[in-house]
């Protein structure tokens, strides 16, 4: 799928913490490298997300903050 977001990171769902409104989805994109996403509970159900399933983290370049060591 072509999309405008510059960062599309493939990973495996490591954990899903379900809340009444939103879910916290932890995606492991490389060993010990995790990305956390907050999505609605509706989306979690619609995408049939579950632990171990392959999924993609999609992040627009404008949303990525850059930091450096002191």
């Amino acid at each position: 799928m072509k999309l405008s977001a510059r960062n599309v990171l493939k990973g495996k769902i490591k954990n899903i913490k379900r809340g009444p409104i939103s879910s916290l989805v932890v995606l492991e994109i490389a060993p010990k490298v995790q990305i956390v996403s907050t999505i609605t509970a509706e989306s979690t159900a619609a995408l049939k997300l579950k632990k171990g399933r392959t999924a993609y983290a999609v992040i627009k370049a404008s949303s990525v903050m850059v930091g450096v060591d002191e």
Partner: protein
Amino acid sequence: MTPGIQASFTKRFADGPVIRAENLHASTNGVTVLFGPSGSGKTTMLRCLAGLEQPEAGQIQFDGEVWFDSDSKKIVPARKRNTGFVPQDYALFPHLTVAANIGYGLYGQSATKKKARVSEIVRWLGLDKLETRLPHELSGGQQQRVGLARAVVRRPRLLLLDEPLSALDTPTRQRLRGELRSQLLQLGIPAILVTHDRYEAAALGDQLVVLDQGLMLQTGPVADVINHPTNLAVAAIVGTETVLLGHLTRVSDGLATVNVNGHEFTALAEDLPSGANAVHLCIRAEDVILIQNGGAPASARNRLSATVLALAPEGPMMRIELDCGFPLKALLTRQACDELALKAGASVVALIKAPHIHLIPR
């Protein structure tokens, strides 16, 4: 004692609006930005804080010390407030060298002390080798640094900057934004900065005060104000690109469903008063993702079929005008536009996460 600036005052001009600071607070941490369109009163507010203009009524305090009080008729003159002021055009003396411009404010100090302090500031701001130049021999960015150096050389308690980057060309301004913020933070002096440029406000500020026609419309942390404007005037001033009028059809499980021209949007139902019906939906162009028609499922709750109307460059980005049955704007990198082969008339799908749609009750 409230640390930092605490001010409530009015200032009236014969032919302009009344400038009214209401409980203006600028803490001693970080940068407070006075942000608004031309004529909104931000420079007047800054000049009142500096003591360069006197309000008609009210009070201005810094760290609990009264600088202005109309009731007791107390006015601390500008030179005794120990603020560093950087005017819009830097106001450098054209006949003095960089070193003499910077050292000008250090009157009453010995030549040795003066030289040592000027060298310290010159080194810190990377103005070495330029000390003997005259202002007209400097680039715009170098002049800006000399203006800043002159303001901080006396170790002021508060730094006031009036549109510090507006005299520069666009590429230099963009480059210096990050530089200026790190300089202000390194100094550890609280700063109040005036700008009409929302990118500058976002890049430089910690706290944002939005002004229009002399009034303070909203204050708060920069991201909060930009992402959650409390009314349409603030949404327009902070540059929320898409504002749509819709009708709230359902609120359930913390999510609101809003109908706009027959299309249902999902947004977070935060801070919606009970009984709200008509709402404005605010969507920032940078929060819109475009995908090719028929793309794979994604978590974004809002999926809109759209036709590209126009593309226009905006710095390193491209601004895309879309027709979804209502207008929508997206801000994408040029590379993204190339990969999606975006051009006028192309069909795409716009994705917007529910938390990226901010609702303002009408």
